[in-house]
């Protein structure tokens, strides 16, 4: 079985934030970078799937879109135990549809039995790349997966997916398929220093990006919303305050 895990190196905001001169993004000087939290769960789930199915020819391939800096996140996955990695060489941020278009040909070429993505990335929080990629690949997809139980042989799985309001949808899926993995599905392992050092030595295949096509959206300007006047302090007991809040809401809704 071959499992492809799509991962992203996300930007992490520090205490202070400034926008770049063109106001199209945050100034990278104010950003740290890390492996997207959801993707560490996806990588761990791939490793556990391999371990539970225990087949000889299993392979876990990590695919990411980014500039050379993104290799830090990729190597984190290799240190956890992924076998191989491919980086689609492209700098700058991209919308989820563009990302899916860039990932699709690379994933397709690997002909995976299973594709894992994180539910969302912690910086963009769009939760769309995984499902868009499934559409482009023509794969069945299960989103927001919190539990996977494999049939013997691994051709089919019973999958729990998280719905709103604490509901869980239990469904079955045949391979090949794409699953977006929710945090908490497992406890991602930590890489030892030795594994980190070995991952540093591994070759990461770099491929040129395919045509991204028309982006799903464009950033026109980033700015801090202007501060507005008019905070109104309410006095009185809880019941008085609740009544007053209701009146205010009703007035505004008119």
């Amino acid at each position, binding site marked *: 079985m071959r499992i492809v895990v799509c991962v992203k190196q996300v930007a992490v905001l520090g205490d202070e934030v400034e926008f770049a001169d063109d106001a199209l993004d945050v100034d990278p000087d104010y950003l740290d970078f890390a492996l997207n939290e959801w993707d560490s769960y996806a990588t761990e789930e791939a490793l556990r799937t391999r371990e539970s199915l225990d087949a000889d020819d299993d392979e876990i391939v990590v695919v990411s879109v980014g500039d050379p800096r993104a290799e830090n996140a990729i190597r984190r996955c290799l240190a956890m135990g992924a076998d191989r990695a491919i980086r689609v060489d492209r700098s700058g941020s991209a919308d989820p549809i563009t990302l899916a278009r860039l990932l699709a040909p690379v994933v397709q070429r690997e002909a995976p039995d299973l594709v894992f993505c994180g539910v969302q990335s912690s910086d963009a929080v769009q939760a769309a790349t995984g499902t868009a990629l499934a559409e482009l690949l023509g794969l069945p997809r299960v989103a927001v997966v919190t539990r996977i139980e494999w049939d013997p042989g691994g051709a089919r799985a019973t999958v729990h997916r998280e719905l709103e309001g604490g509901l869980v949808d239990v469904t079955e899926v045949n391979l090949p398929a794409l699953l977006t993995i929710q945090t908490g599905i497992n406890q991602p392992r*930590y890489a030892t220093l030795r594994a980190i050092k070995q991952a540093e030595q591994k070759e990461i295949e770099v491929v040129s990006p395919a045509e991204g096509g028309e982006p799903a959206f464009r950033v026109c300007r980033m700015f801090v919303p202007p501060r507005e006047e008019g905070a109104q302090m309410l006095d009185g007991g809880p019941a008085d305050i609740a009544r007053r809040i209701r009146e205010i809401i009703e007035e505004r809704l008119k």
Partner: protein
Amino acid sequence: MPRDPKYDVLFEPIQLGPKTMKNRFYQIPHCNGFGSEKPLSQAYFRAMKAEGGYGACCTEYCSISPESDDTHRVSARLWDDDDVKNLSVMCEMLHEHGALAAAELWYGGPHAPCMESRSVPRGPSQIPSDFEYLTYAKEMDKDDIREVQQLYVDAAKRAREAGFDIVYVYGSHSYLPQQFLTPYYNKRTDEYGGSLENRARFWRETIEQVREAVGDDTAIAVRMSCDMFMGDAGTQLERDCLPFVELCDEIVDVWDINVSGISEWGEDATPSRFYPSGRLLPWQEAVKKVSKKPVLGVGRFTSPDLMVDAINSGKLDIIATCRPSISDPFLPQKIDEGRLDDIRECIGCNICISRWEIGGPPVICTQNATAGEEYRRGWHPEKFDTAENADNDALVVGAGPAGMECAMILGKRGMRRVHLVEAEEDMGGIMRWIPQLPGLGEWARVVNYRKIQIDKLPNVEFIPGTTLDANGVKEYGAEIVVIATGANWVTDGLNGCTHDTISGADASQPWCLTPEQIMRDGKEVPGGNVLIVDNDGYFMGVSLAEKLASEGKKVTLMTHLGHIAPYMHFTLEAPNQHRKLHKLGVDIVPYHIPTRIEQGAVTATHVYDDEAHEQTWDADAVVLVTQRRSNEALYRELKDRVGFDALEQEGITGCYRIGDCEAPRLIADCVFSGHRLAREIDSDNPEVPKPFIRERRVIERELAVA
């Protein structure tokens, strides 16, 4: 990040008589074990706070004469011109950082045992000290009064010569001027005793004379206790202090207001166990209302919001700190730079004070391992050089106080990667549960500070929920391995009194428990009758007694020592802890050691009973606070079974133990141990501490060649 404007008031200058202080951060007089006889340690220690932004720093109590010799404890001294030379270094270094230098002129009266000078102290009345044993003062006649006042004047002139900007006529903590003010000490019937005017006369005259001598270019400070908590006998705010302030306000440039006498000065230097920050504000506010002069005072302030509130609400003009300035000499600068989460907050454990009370050792701090090491080890609390072996990866096993500190400092010294691996799900080790003992919540700051710092260090990674065996360590891939696996309370009653186990003691039984089992593992303490065996002598036994008694159990606390928790006398926690235990009905059995423990009963003998008569106590549960033992299994496995040679073949160039894992000790010493190893990780042999500078007189002579 720039300073939050709401803290601006803390950075406004203020006039103290002829001197201007650049901001509102003042390091109150406090001891450090250096005095005037370790002058460079003294100067570097105070200057670190000036570098960190303090607007003024004071000496500890500074003796004006051999008649006021506090040996065995260490004070500063201004007895002669050589003392002037020594203390002038401190003044110079403070001035280089733009801070004022203050000297707290001190005359102890009956409290000064004069063990070095063998002089006789003088006092208002001849009653032995309530703080010392066997020390009496000579009762002062009028000539004595003139002579002692002249001692103040001469010392003030020497202080000015040394470069001090502020001189105190210090009364608080029951020293001579306040002795005159207080009926408890002053039984005189002449014009220096009786009415307030008479009791105030000695202090007022002394202030006048000192002012006359140096006041034109030196600020005069008066430190007064406004409540001794002894009823009519002690100094009282309304009756004595406020009238005294009105009487002397014209001749004083700044008031330093606190509370307590000397025998229970933990009411002033409040342990966090009993008091929050700002406990002295009501007295400080009362003085501020009647005085036209600036009022400063302590309150173990670590929060800039509380500081601002104290100033804006008219309770203080200047924020004085003692312990918070030891814990973080850069407190002002961090507030100024908007780096509030970098503040190393004092936990109020008073381990610093314990060293003065013990009488001699240098100051230490649980939070700040560099306190007292500024000169002799050259350590700076905020600056770290890159280690020569920074291209190495380090593995620290165990995230207790020692392991956290070591990983943090290794990270700050730029090691390529540091992995801090912990069996539990979170950092802290013993400090995950010790702060849950009654009153010890603030002690959790030891963990919080380090957690935040470690989180900020990109080269340090915390790895929870992971237990490593020797093989795991060997194959982990680190070049440097640090084992910090802590210690545990023994389960068999082994103790430092008999150097043997206690017959029948076995904490695998449901009725026999250790502190960790109760606090960490949630093991239930059965029955209503609990006997705690305390051979430790610090906070654990009494804290568990308080906790279990508060939960409604009948608690007996048995120790082989003459007192329960004698170390808590040094931390000033003892008086109020005794009050608590007494109120809770805890039975205290000193001088006893168990000979046999069984379900339902503890049999013990008096330690000085040569016939070993036995007595039996009923006990549904027995808690063993007898001693700790290092958890050194992993280290022993690595050293004895795997062998350091085999580790070296795996690329591991050093394997060290730190903290309780090496030998159980104070939390402050665990933090120091982790810090010390990280500071010296690139020395020839990091296991052995590098020599430190010993400030001492060395005889110039050739050594005979052997």
